């Protein structure tokens, strides 16, 4: 079972993760000195 989960991880999650890192990080990890705020106002609350 662990092998199956590992396969899913490498075949699905790792490529998606690379995409995130290259194009759009959903975790907004970068510090952005140019922004005046990190508050999220406009989107649907999550």
């Amino acid at each position, binding site marked *: 079972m662990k092998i199956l*989960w590992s396969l899913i*991880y490498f075949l699905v*999650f790792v490529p998606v*993760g690379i995409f*995130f890192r290259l194009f759009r990080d959903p*975790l*907004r990890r970068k510090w952005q000195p140019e922004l*005046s705020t990190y508050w999220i106002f406009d989107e649907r609350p999550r």
Partner: protein
Amino acid sequence: MGKLVLGLSAYYHDSAAVLVRDGKPIAAAQEERFTRKRHDPAFPAEAVKYCLAEGGVGLDDVDAVAYYEDPKLKFGRVLTSFAASSPFSLEAFTRVLPEWTSWKRDTVGRVRRSLADLGLGAVPEINVRRHHESHAASAFLPSPYESAAVLCIDGVGEWATTTLWHGQGSRIRHLAEIRYPHSLGMLYSAFTYFCGFKVDSGEYKLMGLAPYGVPRYADVIRQHLIDVKDDGSFRLNMSNFEFLRGQVMTGRGFEQLFGGPRREPESPLTEREFDLAASVQLVTEEVVLKLARTAREMTGEANLCLAGGVALNCVANGKVIQETIFDSVWVQPAAGDAGGALGAALMVATELGAPRAHLAEGGDGMSSSLLGPGFSDEEIARFLDDLGVPYTRLDEESIAKHVAEELATGKIVGWFQGRMEFGPRALGARSIIGDPRDVDMQSTMNLKIKFRESFRPFAPSVLAEEVEEYFDLHQESPYMLVVAPVAKQRRLDAEESAQATGLDRLKVHRSTIPAVTHVDHSARVQTVTASSNPTYHRLLTAFKQVTGCPVLVNTSFNVRGEPIVATPYDAYQCFMRTNIDLLALGNFLLNKADQPAWREQGDWRKEIALD
């Protein structure tokens, strides 16, 4: 009968159930008190049974069930986090994901089945709320304010970790949020872990440790761990934290920043831990103050309501009050996730048309948080007679007088009265009480009663009408969630205190109430009024009559690692296992010296996991 809503929180930390009738909480309890497993995350079966029994109803009578967070949204966050932290999260992924796909994804189905299994009637509709919506509702709806700013700060629920709301009448409007992994709760927990304490319970210890240190790492934290904007919004520097990868809170990043590996749990505390605690506490306070100012600006309100695990940081709450950013601040007594059950239920009740009736009466809608099980004199008498132990039965006035006299001679008393508290604090219903003027009381209580670390401070209860005589606090603090300085006229030791460092500061005679004066002259105050808790008020009044001092030491009725006692049996067991001298169970007084020898198999101290 009025509309009934059953609120639930479960499967993460500190499960709880709450029953709300027409918008008023009538019963609430954490599952841990019944199962005797600290912070029990299991489905709160016993708490639900208690709430329904207290309300005299079955599930058939309940109009709706409210669940405190949205499992689907949370699952999305878990999946996203694993992808975003790949390829470094494989180990956690293979451990956590099977659990999500097998049942956690369908938490609501599991809640429905667990409720049905109780055999207490047909399960009504289950209404799912968001985690921070539940916190916000728990902060605002029972608060004494017609309108207020609402600030919720915790570790994480689904995505939000910090949210700002505007409460008006029965409505709560979402204004802004900060999302995972950027979390003030996680920052604090990372330091809790790094200093060798347990995450999700050792945060109190870190807060208690902070006054022993100097905040020499605050700049490192500001430069390398958290970027805070002027409006209090922030982001963490995730390259220095490990929790995204899922196994532990901190790793090499912290080791490099703070000079070596984390402290091993239970090993001796060093200057580094004192200073780390002081530093993260200072930065947390800075952020909370900025967030509070933003809340004021964005809402224009004069009152603030707080909830979420970080709102249990009573030192930060005290700073918000001291800075007078708001005219008044109210903190939900069950500010952690147990209180989410209450918030979710109140929100659904409000949507079903329930009014905030307590506003007309003045005060808050929490019934002093005394919402747990209580025991009549007849039940206690039966328990004691079945046990066959000696006791004296008194009336309300004479038990208060008698206990006060014994306290004044240095005796320590188990005080078990009325309904149990909802939330993490003992508020005079399930408390261990002592004389705050006694210089040895702190170490006696820590080492001989609670069997816990000597550095941990104790909190005072004070007659509300006398609070300003003893503390620099100008509003009520009925739930012991505000730290305030001991009043200048009660302090003793300026010179001695300035010279001592680290744990040596414990030995300094700091004030006329040394047992409840922390090394920085602060105290986590509980104000007690005759209307909010008449029995406890009577005891404080009696103690004042005997000694002239309207203050008592109040600590939770348990030993280290154990949930607070719930029943007379739990109380008697704790009384006999420890060096408590007297036990007041309702109007029944038990003297340790008269009790038969206590025998149990095995060493109970080994059976209770350390917190």
